[in-house]
């Protein structure tokens, strides 16, 4: 790389005449802070329409937390209805079957696309990739701003869909055709059109974001930052971006086809007119399953960073984790039909998709074992982010195990469409979205906001979340094995579900506890931003580059020079050296040994 702090003007191609108006263009990203700081910094450009990757990351974070409240409110109404069917729900009223369908659909959509992705990719990726690789900003700062505002528009669209005639989309978060393809099946017209529009904007936003992430990580690394000196989080974000870019295309085509079915009266997915409803399921899950790994990888990345720092040990198997991540990314593209074992697709396909599904647990297990071996014989510091990282390992293993069970077609066919599946994907996905996200938020909060979070409140939040998380989702496996189907409005309508109704009440009360525990975080979060103890530059004694910048980093991240990298990201307790850790930008000659 070796690019300096001040940009060289764009080199003219060979043979260009000096008379051409070849104005020396200065690359603003490479300018030292002293020069960028003089640009106009009105309130709007600083806080709202900012091109600073750190501000944009915070915008993603705030948007996601707001949408999490909305998604949480929807699930509160659903759980109340399941525990005490057809009673008036405090803060909502009565729920009919049509409303319930809209609630499940939008709970799924909002939590996956407007909470998990904005936090794990939008906030973590934007904040950390430039800081960790030693860049002053993303490769395309204005595109970055556009990505966020398109997502913002998308979230406005999904929220407005609740207020149009017919109500919000009610065809499930997977939008299975023909349910989603014709208005008469759900009674919802504009709701589903807006739901599709929100997806289109969301995909556009994260496509631009993914291109930006990849270009940044490939072209903007600081001098000395080779690919195998990158922190694992950057690798994981890059792999997540690649999988997203490669898997979302067919669904974009599918969404256009669905929209044509709805608006133009074509029949791609409508069987009575020669269409194929299974085609939609293939297109949806070709994206839908890799999407799980798109969310998982940034979560894994955050946990790996935290494990190394608070074990005071180098990551076990750094390169093998990278190779495993890439294998997981590849395999995730060829497992999708395990969602469709009972859909009526050719049953001969069940075997190959079972095999790839179970195969993907091998590289995942390799990463998890590397996490455990990183802890082995480390000097573990039980800080709040470390607690969340440890919680992640335990909960992720628990959720992953039922994944292997479900990957096998014979078992899957028995429990398909029951609460066992709901319990599985909430355990495994929330271990990423809750435990992975909080690992990252508690760890990088000092860098983001320049203040420390309250430790006792953080620990209490972790403890209550861990307890209520298990009280909520563990019994759900039992309810599912008892045969309770997903997406039913009133379990009491079925005689065979009478015995598990007490468990349904129990799950609802636990889910309320889980929700209330999150307000501890919100209080801590807001209070710490305003009045937390001031954070040092490197409060956790971490070796990666983001901690060499001030807390919070100014526009441009570092002063006049960007750091030069001399070593890998995890040199903790290195042998034969007095220091506890060696930061990545520490020159070999500067060591005190």
């Amino acid at each position, binding site marked *: 790389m070796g*690019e300096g702090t001040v*940009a*060289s*003007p*764009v*080199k*003219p*191609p*060979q*043979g*260009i*005449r000096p008379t*051409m*108006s*070849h*104005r020396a*263009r200065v*690359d603003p990203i*490479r300018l030292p802070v002293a020069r960028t700081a003089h640009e106009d910094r009105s309130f709007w450009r600083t806080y709202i329409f900012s091109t600073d990757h750190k501000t944009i990351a915070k915008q993603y974070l705030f948007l996601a937390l707001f949408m999490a409240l909305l998604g949480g409110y929807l699930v509160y109404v659903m759980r109340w209805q399941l525990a005490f069917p057809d009673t008036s729900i405090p803060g909502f009223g009565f729920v009919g079957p049509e409303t319930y369908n809209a609630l499940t659909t939008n709970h799924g959509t909002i939590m996956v696309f407007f909470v998990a992705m904005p936090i794990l990719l939008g906030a973590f990726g934007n904040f950390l990739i430039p800081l960790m690789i030693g860049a002053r900003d993303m*490769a*395309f700062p204005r595109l970055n701003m556009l990505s966020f505002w398109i997502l913002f528009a998308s979230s406005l669209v999904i929220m407005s869909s609740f207020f149009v005639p017919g109500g919000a989309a009610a065809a499930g978060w997977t939008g299975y055709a023909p349910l989603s393809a014709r208005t008469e099946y759900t009674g919802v017209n504009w709701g589903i059109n807006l739901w599709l529009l929100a997806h289109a904007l969301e995909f556009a936003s994260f*496509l631009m974001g*993914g*291109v*930006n992430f*990849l*270009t940044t990580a*490939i*072209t*903007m690394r600081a001098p000395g930052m080779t690919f195998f000196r990158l922190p694992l989080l950057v690798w994981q974000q890059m792999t997540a971006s690649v999988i997203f*870019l*490669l*898997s*979302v*295309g*067919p*669904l*974009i*085509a*599918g969404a*256009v*086809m669905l929209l*044509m079915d709805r608006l*133009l*009266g*074509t*029949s*791609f997915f409508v069987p009575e007119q*020669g*269409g*194929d409803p299974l*085609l939609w399921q293939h*297109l949806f899950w*070709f994206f839908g399953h890799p999407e799980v790994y798109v969310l998982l990888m940034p979560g894994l990345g955050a946990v790996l960073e935290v494990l190394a720092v608070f074990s005071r040990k180098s990551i076990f198997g750094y390169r093998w984790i990278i190779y495993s991540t890439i294998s997981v990314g590849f395999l995730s593209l060829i497992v999708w039909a395990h969602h469709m074992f009972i859909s009526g697709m050719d049953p001969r396909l069940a075997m190959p998709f079972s095999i790839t599904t179970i195969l993907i647990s091998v590289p995942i297990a390799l990463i998890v074992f590397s996490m455990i071996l990183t802890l082995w014989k480390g000097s573990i510091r039980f800080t709040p982010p470390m607690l969340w990282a440890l919680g992640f390992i335990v909960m992720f293993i628990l959720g992953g195990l039922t994944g292997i069970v479900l990957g096998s077609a014979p078992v899957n066919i028995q429990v398909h469409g029951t609460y066992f599946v709901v319990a599985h994907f909430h355990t495994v996905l929330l271990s990423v979205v809750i435990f992975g996200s909080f690992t990252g938020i508690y760890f990088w909060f000092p860098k983001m906001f320049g203040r420390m979070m309250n430790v006792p409140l953080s620990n209490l939040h972790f403890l209550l979340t861990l307890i209520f998380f298990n009280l909520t989702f563990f019994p759900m496996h039992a309810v599912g094995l008892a045969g309770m189907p997903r997406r039913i409005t009133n379990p009491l309508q079925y005689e065979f579900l009478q015995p598990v109704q007490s468990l349904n009440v129990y799950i609802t009360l636990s889910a309320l506890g889980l929700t209330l525990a999150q307000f501890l975080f919100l209080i801590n979060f807001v209070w710490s931003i305003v009045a937390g103890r001031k954070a040092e530059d490197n409060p956790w004694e971490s070796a990666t580059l983001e901690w060499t910048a001030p807390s919070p980093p100014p526009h441009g991240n570092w002063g006049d020079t960007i750091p030069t990298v001399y070593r890998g990201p995890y040199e903790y307790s290195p042998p034969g050296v007095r220091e506890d850790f060696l930061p990545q930008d520490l020159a070999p000659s500067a060591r005190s040994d």
Partner: protein
Amino acid sequence: MRMAVVSEQSAPARRGKIAVWWLIASEVMIFGGALSCYILARTAGPGWSAEAAHLSAILATINTFVLLTSSMTMAMAFAAYQKADQRGVCRFLLCTILLGLAFLGIKAYEYISHIADGLAPWSGSFWSFYYLLTGLHALHVIAGIIVNIILLLAAGKGLHTGYRIEIAGLYWHFVDIVWIFLFPLLYLSY
């Protein structure tokens, strides 16, 4: 087109080129997904050939020629930029834009004559796929023309960001290649 060594390029040129390659990768998956659906649906059901016979292979051949020529003029625009020939850049960009518009004109004529014959998107599976695939492609042609117009306006004022011609060219050639797949699959296979 000059295959430049990446490390010799200026930072913005290098960033732009890498970004466009990733964009193209995702676009390949969009068209790949749609084309796979079409091929699978077509091999699964009979009666598609009779529908496909309504299409005019002659018009499509002319259109293929128009679009391929536009790729050539796009490459010549970049070659002119490398020789610092500002007038050449403008001239060849204008040619590319006009050829793109000609492609869209012929495509529009085809659409109008099909619809006049009662062959609309809702007239059966073949026509659904025909309008989906060619419509998506036409949207990409429109996007490429807009990009080229922006470059033409910029080139009129000087050439200081001429590397963008190469980046836009990558995209334009990709749109061409998509058509190379659509042409035989829709027009020639019946």
